[in-house]
C-alpha cells in the first residue's frame, strides 16, 4: 500500500514545535519544583536587581500605576540596551571580527552552562552571542546555581567534589557540542534546549509586571529589528547571506528529516512550508527517515551554526563523500520508482525544503537565489537528494516563549495550558507566513501577543467560569 500524504505533511513544523514544547515543559516543571523555596527566600533576601529592572524595583505594596510605569520604563531600558548591543554585534560582524565573536560565544556558553560567579562578564558575552539576550544580571543565577537549587530543593545527597566534576563535564561537553563539528546533532539540539531552559528559568525571577512589559516590548523590538529597513537583525541576516556564511548566533536547527515534499510545494503552500534551498552550501546528503538516526551520529559537520570559517570546499567534499558512501535506502528507492511511474520526472527528485527560520527571534534567512539554484540543482542532481537543514529558530525565541509559560505557571495550570496553545499556534502562524513571504521573519510578535492575550483572558474570564462549574461537579 502506498503511503498516504498524511504521513509526511507538517513534519517540519513538528520538528520545530517539539523542542519548543519540551523547553516550555521543562521550564514549567522547574518553576513548579523550585518556586516554594524561592518564595521563602525572597522574603528575606534583597530584591533582585538586574539590567532588566535597572530603573524600577517592584514591590508588592506599590500601587498599580506605579508598577505599570516602572515596568514600562524597565522594559524600555532593557530593549534599548539590547538594541545597542545588537548594533555593536552587527558592526563587529560587518568588519569581519568573526573569530572574536565566535570565541565570545563559546566563552559565554561555557559560563551559562556552568556555574558562574562571574555573572557580569558572562552576561556581556552572551549578549554578543545572540544579540538580544541579556546584559542582565549582576547576580547571576545560571546553570550552576539552578543545579544547586535543585539539589537543595530535593535534598539530593552529593558532595561538592562530585558536583563540581559533573558540572564541569556537563559544561565542557555542552560548549564542544554547540560550537564544533562532528558532534551528533541530537546532542547539539539537547544543549540548545538546555541553554534555553537555563536562561528562561533565570528570567522567571523577574517581578510580574516587569516580565509582561518586557515580553511585549521585546516582541515589538523583534518586529522592528527583523522587518524594518535598517533593523539590526535584518542587516545581520542580509550580511550573512550575502557572504554565504552562517549567522554568528545561537540558533536551533530542526533535525533534518526527509519528508516527501516534492517540488510543487509552492502549490501546497499551506501545508508545506515553502522551502528555500540554501545556495552557498547545498548539501548533498542522503538522509532518509529509516536511517536518520544513524546518519546523524555520523557527524554532520555542517550543523554547527557558528563554524563560519571552516565552511570551505572540504565541507562540500565531505558531504559528497557521504553521498557516495551511504546507500540509498529502500524507502527512498520506493519513492523514486513509484513516483517515477506515476508522474513526471521532476517529482522524483526528492527535494528537501530548506526553511531557514532564523535567529534572534528568528529572522529566517531567506535564500534569495533559490530560483536559479533550484533549477540548476534539479538539472544536475537527478539521483541525489538535497537535504534540508530544517527550520531554524533562534535561541531567543525558546527563551522568551518559556519565560511566558513559566510566568503563567506561577499563577495556575490553566493559564499554562492556554499560553502554551497560544504560543504554539502563533508559531504555526509564523511558519505559515514564512512559507508565504519567504524571508526572514520574527518569531516573537505573533506568539507573544497571543500568549499574553490568552493569559489575561484565561485568568480574568475563564477561571471563574470553570471553577464555578467544576466545583459543583458539572461538566459538558
Amino acid at each position, binding site marked *: 500500500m502506498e503511503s498516504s500524504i498524511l504521513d509526511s505533511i507538517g513534519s517540519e513544523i513538528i520538528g520545530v514545535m517539539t523542542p519548543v514544547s519540551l523547553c516550555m515543559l521543562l521550564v514549567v516543571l522547574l518553576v513548579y519544583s523550585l518556586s516554594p523555596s524561592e518564595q521563602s527566600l525572597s522574603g528575606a533576601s534583597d530584591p533582585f536587581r538586574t539590567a532588566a529592572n535597572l530603573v524600577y524595583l517592584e514591590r508588592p505594596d506599590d500601587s498599580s500605576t506605579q508598577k505599570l510605569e516602572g515596568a514600562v520604563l524597565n522594559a524600555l531600558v532593557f530593549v534599548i540596551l539590547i538594541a545597542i548591543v545588537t548594533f555593536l554585534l552587527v558592526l563587529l560582524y560587518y568588519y569581519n571580527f568573526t573569530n572574536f565573536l565566535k570565541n565570545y560565544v563559546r566563552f559565554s556558553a561555557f559560563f551559562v552552562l556552568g556555574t558562574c560567579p562571574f555573572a557580569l562578564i558572562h552576561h556581556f558575552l552572551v549578549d554578543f552571542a545572540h544579540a538580544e539576550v541579556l546584559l542582565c544580571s549582576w547576580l547571576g543565577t545560571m546553570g550552576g546555581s539552578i543545579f544547586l537549587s535543585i539539589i537543595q530543593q530535593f535534598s539530593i545527597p552529593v558532595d561538592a567534589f562530585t558536583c563540581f566534576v559533573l558540572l564541569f563535564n556537563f559544561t565542557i561537553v555542552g560548549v564542544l557540542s554547540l560550537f564544533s563539528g562532528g558532534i551528533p546533532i541530537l546532542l547539539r539540539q539537547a544543549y540548545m534546549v538546555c541553554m534555553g531552559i537555563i536562561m528562561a528559568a533565570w528570567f522567571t525571577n523577574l517581578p510580574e509586571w516587569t516580565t509582561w512589559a518586557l515580553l511585549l516590548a521585546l516582541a515589538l523590538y523583534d518586529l522592528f529589528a527583523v522587518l524594518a529597513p535598517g533593523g539590526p537583525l535584518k542587516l545581520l541576516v542580509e550580511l550573512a547571506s550575502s557572504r554565504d556564511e552562517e549567522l554568528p548566533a545561537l540558533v536551533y536547527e530542526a533535525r533534518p528529516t526527509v519528508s516527501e515534499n516534492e517540488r510543487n510545494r509552492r502549490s501546497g503552500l499551506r501545508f508545506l512550508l515553502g522551502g528555500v534551498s540554501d545556495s552557498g552550501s547545498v548539501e548533498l546528503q542522503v538522509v532518509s527517515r529509516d536511517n536518520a538516526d544513524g546518519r546523524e551520529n555520523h557527524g554532520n559537520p555542517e550543523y554547527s551554526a557558528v563554524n563560519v570559517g571552516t565552511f570551505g570546499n572540504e565541507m562540500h567534499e565531505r558531504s559528497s563523500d557521504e553521498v557516495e558512501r551511504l546507500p540509498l535506502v529502500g524507502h527512498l528507492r520506493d519513492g523514486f520508482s513509484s513516483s517515477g511511474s506515476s*508522474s513526471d520526472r521532476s517529482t522524483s527528485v526528492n527535494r528537501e525544503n530548506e526553511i531557514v527560520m532564523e535567529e534572534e527571534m528568528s529572522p529566517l534567512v531567506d535564500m534569495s537565489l533559490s530560483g536559479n539554484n533550484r533549477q540548476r540543482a534539479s538539472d544536475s542532481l537527478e539521483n541525489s537528494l538535497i537535504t534540508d537543514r530544517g527550520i531554524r529558530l533562534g535561541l531567543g525565541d525558546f527563551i522568551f516563549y518559556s519565560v511566558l509559560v513559566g510566568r503563567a505557571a506561577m499563577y495556575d495550570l490553566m493559564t499554562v495550558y492556554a499560553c502554551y496553545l*497560544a504560543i504554539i499556534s502563533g508559531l504555526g502562524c509564523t511558519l505559515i507566513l514564512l512559507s508565504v513571504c519567504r524571508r526572514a521573519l520574527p518569531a516573537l510578535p505573533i506568539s507573544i501577543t497571543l500568549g499574553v492575550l490568552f493569559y489575561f483572558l484565561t485568568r480574568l474570564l475563564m477561571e471563574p467560569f470553570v471553577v*464555578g462549574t467544576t466545583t459543583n461537579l458539572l*461538566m459538558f
Partner: protein
Amino acid sequence: MTVAVGIGYALIALGPSLSLFVAVISKKPFLILTVLSSTLLWLISLIVLSGIWRAFLPLKSTTWWPFALLIISSVGFQEGLRVLFWKVYKRLEDTLDAFADRVGKPRLFLTDKMQIALAGGLGHGVAHAVFFCLSLLTPAFGPATFYVDRCPQMPFFLISAIIALAFVTIHTFSMVIAFNGYAEGNTTDQYFVPVVHLVAGMVTLVNFASGGCVVGIPLLYILASLILLHCGKMVWRRLTAS
C-alpha cells in the same frame, strides 16, 4: 505520596487519551497539528462562553436552573462550532486531495479521514479535560485533599477526574461519528451527537442533589459506552463496506 496521587488523578482523566495519542496520533505530524488546532478552537470556545457568562458569575450554588441554562447554552454553542469545524475540515480535505493529485500520491484514504476526525475529537476532549479537571488538580499535589458536601464518598479530585474521563471519551468518539454523519448525509448521526452531548451535560446536573454522584456518574458512563459502541459499529460498517 501526594505527588503520586496527583499524577494518578491526572492519568485517570487523561491516560486513555495519552495512549491514543502515542499509539495513533504521534506517528503522523499532520494529526498532531490537527489535535493542537482543535484544542485551540475549543479553548477559544470556552473563553467566548465564559466571556458571555462572566456577568452572571458566580452563580448561587443552591439553585440548579441557572446551571441548566449555562449547560444548554454552552452545548448549543459548541455544537454550532462543530458544524463550523466540519466546514473548515471539508475545505482542508479538498485542498489535501488536490495536493495529493499534484504530487502524484493517492488521495486520502477512508482511514485517514477517520484519523483526522479522531484527532479533532481528541483535541476537543483534551481541551475539556485539561481545563475542567487537570487545571484544578494543583492542590491535589499538596499534602491535603478536598471533599465536596454533595458527594462525600470520594475526594473531589477523583470525582472530577472520573467525570473528565467520561467526557473525553464522549467528545473524542462523537467527533468521528459526527464527521461520518456529515460526510454520508446521515441525519440520525448528525442529531445523535448533539443530543448525547446535551444529555451528558444534563446528567451531570444530577450531581446537584446530595449524594447524586452515585447515580450521575454511572449514567454518564452508560452514555460514554453508548457512544463508543455506536462509533465502533459505524467504523466497522464503513471499513467492511469499502
